């Protein structure tokens, strides 16, 4: 009974998570700052929390649709894996704001980012980060699309709320 087991073997899946984590968070500091820090923090936190929420619902009994890393239960590297999603969420919103995407292009942007997410997940299945049981990449594509749409709505709400507060202050 270990609260947070260590990996069975430190191999490709663990290394890919560590490299993605380092690259993702290093990249967060590179581009010009577009959003106020509290809103950026919310976007990254949303990106980290929602995958954990899905894993805590779909990867556990009675559903058990997929496994992550070496064990069917939560392990230490799962915590690191969830952190990897944060920069992805940030760059999704950053790109949307930076390239001034509006109107029907928004759908194209969501589809492109969902395809990118599916591609990364496919690589993840090759190195053993994800083991699909009753799940496939098509489901992931729709889940990514819906969540990115939600994040877009929420981030616009947060930015508007921030601007209103700033004017009042």
């Amino acid at each position, binding site marked *: *009974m270990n*609260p947070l087991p260590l990996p069975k073997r430190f191999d490709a899946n663990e290394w890919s998570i560590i490299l993605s984590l380092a690259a993702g968070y290093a990249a967060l500091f590179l581009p010009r700052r577009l959003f106020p*820090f509290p809103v950026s923090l919310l976007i990254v*936190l949303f990106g980290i929390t929602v995958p*954990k*929420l899905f894993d805590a619902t779909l990867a556990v009994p009675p559903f058990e649709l997929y496994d992550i890393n070496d064990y069917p239960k*939560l392990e230490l590297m799962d*915590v690191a894996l969830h952190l990897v999603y944060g920069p992805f969420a940030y760059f999704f919103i950053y790109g949307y704001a930076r390239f001034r995407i509006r109107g029907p292009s928004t759908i194209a942007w969501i589809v492109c980012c969902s395809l990118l997410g599916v591609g990364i997940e496919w690589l993840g299945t090759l190195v053993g980060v994800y083991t699909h049981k009753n799940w496939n990449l098509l489901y992931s594509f729709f889940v990514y699309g819906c969540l990115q749409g939600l994040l877009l709505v*929420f981030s616009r709400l947060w930015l508007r*709320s921030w601007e209103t507060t700033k004017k009042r202050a």
Partner: protein
Amino acid sequence: MVLGAYLVATLIIVLVFAYLPKRLHLLELWFNAIVHVYFYTYQFSVLTNLKLVSLPESPDKAAASVAVRFIIFPVIVLLYLQLYDKWKQRSRTAGFAAFVVTGALLLLAQPLFQWTGIIRYSNNGIYWSALAWIVLLGINSGCMTAFRRLVRKELLLP
């Protein structure tokens, strides 16, 4: 039956929350809800790894469990944080009282979850879960204060 009852309870608590006056800023509400869900899911997974709690096998009870864990609990925590924020301004003791009252409420709710079968606790699980809740409420209160400081700093407010 169980799922229906919990969905009605979820709807009621969400409506109560929606219509109550808010003390926290919209960004604070979102931040605190996200932080709570983040730490709560890990807390639950760790307790599951230790075999202190487990989820039901039947899909309808699992769905009720999802509604309770990811909708009702965050709303209760947000209500607690608003109360804590209000009472803390009167005195620290009053703030601590809000902490104790919410902790006790969550502790008392656990036998109900056990009885309806949406969260199954082992013999000592109920006590460890209560302890984890107290820690979680502390983390949420601390994060709320830290985020408020950050927002004030960004807005150049005193």
